[in-house]
């Protein structure tokens, strides 16, 4: 019996070997040093990946017309690590990723420097792109990490958006969107 060259047993074996060579899924990291984004991207390389996505968040120099000197990040580290690990696991399943890496920086981050890096890999681009966006949205909503803007005007401003999402509390939310506590 002749086998189709793309679907026959030989290629099935090859496909099985490929699927074994997935990216090692390292735990999400909270770091206090500069993030090597290329290393984050390289960590999700997989033989069967058709797309790898790298997202980096960087410190913006101007927010609402006020110059920012740097951002200072702090976290509830144990809880943030747990939350990031759960999000990573959910992203791997939900978007059928081959690799997923998350690194968030804590402490002072100068203008232009990377505060967060997310890399995803998948057989096709759409899932890799969607997963990176989904992860960033979830991180910004529920992972206990906060930024403090150190303004050029000397003002320190903790950024506390309107409210924690309903999934995290049952009290009625108050306050405007993106309200900041000064």
């Amino acid at each position: 019996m002749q086998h189709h060259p793309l679907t026959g047993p030989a290629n099935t074996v090859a496909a099985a070997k490929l699927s074994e060579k997935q990216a090692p899924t390292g735990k999400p990291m909270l770091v206090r040093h500069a993030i090597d984004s290329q290393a984050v991207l390289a960590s999700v390389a997989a033989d069967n990946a058709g797309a790898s996505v790298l997202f980096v968040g960087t410190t913006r120099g101007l927010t609402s017309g006020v110059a920012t000197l740097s951002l200072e990040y702090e976290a509830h580290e144990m809880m943030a690590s747990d939350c990031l690990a759960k999000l990573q696991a959910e992203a791997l399943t939900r978007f059928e990723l081959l690799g997923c890496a998350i690194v968030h920086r804590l402490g002072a981050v100068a203008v232009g420097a990377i505060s967060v890096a997310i890399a995803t890999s998948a057989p096709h681009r759409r899932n890799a792109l969607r997963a990176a966006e989904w992860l960033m949205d979830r991180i910004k909503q529920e992972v206990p990490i906060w930024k403090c803007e150190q303004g050029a005007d000397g003002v320190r401003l903790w950024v506390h958006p309107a409210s924690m999402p309903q999934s995290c509390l049952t009290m009625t939310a108050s306050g405007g969107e993106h309200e900041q506590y000064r």
Partner: protein
Amino acid sequence: MQIDPTPLARGNATLRISLFAGMADLAGCRAVEIEWAGGSVALLRSSLAAALPAIEPLLGRSAVAVGGVYATNEATVPCDAEVAIIPPVSGG
């Protein structure tokens, strides 16, 4: 910082509550201790607001984590729980 729990019901245990970011700035400390005989997250919120009125507006927009997990207002806070107030997050 030790807070007189009055007018809270006095219990026989001290509950340590961790504060972060703008919440710590408002309170002037990174953790507070209150006497706690056990009760719900909702009771903890009102007890904390009574002890530290300055944090009340932000507390209303914050989540409460018990044992490192977000807890609803109906959840129970045991006397030996690890509790943190999680103000609206802004990572990324």
